[in-house]
Each structure stands twice: as C-alpha cells, then as structure tokens.
C-alpha cells in the first residue's frame, strides 16, 4: 500500500557523481599518535606538553610496575626496531607501488568512460545522418510513381496496337473474300460466254467467215503491194 500523501523525492540527493576521495588521511605523529592530541594540548602547554606527558606517564608506569620489564620487553624492543627500520627503508617504495596500482585502475575506468561517451557520440552522428536520409524519401516515391505511370502507358499503347491489328485483319479478310468472289464470278461468266459463243458458231457460218477473210486478205494484199 503506497501512502500517496507522503511526498517522494523531496531532496536533491543523487548517487552520482560520487564525491572524490580526500587526498591525505588524518595526520598522525610518530606513527601512532593522532595530531589532534597535540593540538588539543597546545593552548595549555605549548609544543613540548604532550612529550612531557608521555615521559611522565612512561616513568610512572615503570616505577609503579604497571608496566613490568621482563623478557618480553626485550623481544618487543627488537621487533619494534626491525619494524621501524623496515618502514623507514621500504615505505616510500611500497607507497609508490600502491599509487601505481591505483593509477592503473583509475586510468582503465576513465578509458571505459571515454569509450562509452565516444560510442554514444558516434551513435548521435549516425542518427542525425539517418534523419537527413529520411528527407530523401519524397524523391524516391516520385521516381517510383513515374516508373509506374510509364508502365501503364506502355501497356495501354500495346493493347491499342493489338486492337488495331485485329480489326485490320478482320477487315482485310472481308475485302479478300469479296475480291475472290467477284473474280470467280468474272471468270465463270467469261468461260460461259466463250463456251456459248463457240457453240453458236455453226459450220455454215464458219465457211462464210473463212470465205470473207480470204476476200479481205486479197484486198489487203492488193493495197499492200501497192504500198511497197
């Protein structure tokens, strides 16, 4: 159940960016006494106050045997000596090595961040280019429309041509039929007329026409002779 009267996200709190780590830690004097202790005693006792306090405490512990000197004291002294020698000698090298490790981690993280930003930048560029490309859509559609119109036109003209050819073929056929018919009638009539005429020439007429031809020839030969 969500109480809608409760206001949400009222503060500006956000988890990122994380504030950077402080450069140096709290100051520590002689390796194990924090600096705040010296500052705490400075107004009352000056610079030597804490050291006096330390010496007094040490002598008090020793004299009252609150701190007992036995074999462990010698062992502790040797161990402490070795520790201090080691730290003084190898401290800076170890610190430099640790810093180098840290630097490498930071560098790789930074590189990743930069790469991601670069990738996003190029993505933005690509997106802008795509948007520009989309503007050319209208030309594409115009070209397509032109293509289709041309196809339709060609098809229409082809069909017109076909229609014309078919009609012409039919009409030619009719014309050829009529011409053939007329020719046949003509031939038939000529044959019939010739046949009848030849039948009608009787033998007597044949003799008469031959005699007439001979007379004509004689007359012609006389006139021809004269011309030559």
């Amino acid at each position, binding site marked *: 159940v969500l109480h809608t009267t409760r206001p949400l996200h009222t503060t500006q709190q956000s988890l990122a960016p994380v504030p950077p780590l*402080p450069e*140096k*830690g709290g100051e*520590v004097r002689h*390796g194990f006494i924090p600096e705040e202790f010296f500052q705490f005693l400075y107004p009352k006792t000056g610079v030597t106050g804490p050291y006096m306090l330390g010496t007094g405490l040490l002598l008090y512990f020793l004299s009252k045997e609150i*701190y*007992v000197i*036995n074999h462990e004291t010698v062992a502790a002294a040797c161990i402490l000596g070795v520790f201090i020698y080691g730290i003084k000698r190898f401290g800076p090298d170890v610190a430099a090595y640790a810093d180098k490790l*840290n630097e490498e981690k930071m560098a790789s993280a930074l590189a990743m961040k930069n790469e991601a930003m670069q990738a996003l930048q190029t993505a933005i560029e690509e997106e802008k280019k795509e948007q520009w490309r989309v503007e050319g859509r209208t030309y594409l559609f115009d070209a397509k429309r032109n293509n289709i119109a041309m196809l339709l036109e060609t098809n229409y003209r082809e069909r017109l041509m076909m229609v014309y050819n078919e009609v012409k073929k039919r009409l030619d056929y009719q014309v050829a039929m009529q011409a053939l018919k007329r020719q046949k009638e003509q031939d038939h009539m000529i044959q019939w007329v010739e046949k009848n005429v030849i039948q009608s020439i009787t033998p007597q007429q044949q003799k008469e026409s031959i005699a007439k031809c001979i007379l004509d020839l004689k007359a012609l030969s006389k006139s021809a002779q004269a011309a030559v």
Partner: protein
Amino acid sequence: LPAAVLLKDTKLMDVKLGQLGSWLAMRDFTPSGILGAVRRGYDRYYNKYINVRKGGIGGVSMVLAGYIVLSYMWSYSHI
C-alpha cells in the same frame, strides 16, 4: 538568543564535566544502539585514516597500538 541545545544532542567534547554522569545515562544502551555506536565509530575511523588516496602507516599502526595496549591490560594479572 541562541537556541538551547538539549543535553541529549550535545557531542561528548561539548559536555561539561558536571553533566557527564547524566549525559552518559541518557545514551542508548539497547543492542541496536550499541551496534549503531560501534558502526559509527568504525565509519569515522575508516573514513578519516584508511579510505583516502594516499594513506600512511598511521591508519594501521594506531589499530595495532590499541590492540597491544588492550592485550597487555587483559593479561596483566598473569605477569
């Protein structure tokens, strides 16, 4: 007129010596309170001396010194 701060909310360094008893009595001694106090103390120490860019030997050596002193105190009767 400065606003009067309740004794419950003052920090330890601002408590006057006479009020120390009553201040101590007002603290939270339930298990969760003690756990919270330990957590806070640990966080303060950690963020001041260890969780930094260039930490020194002080952060670790103070813990070791405290451990030495505490173990000496616990084993004093055996000496």
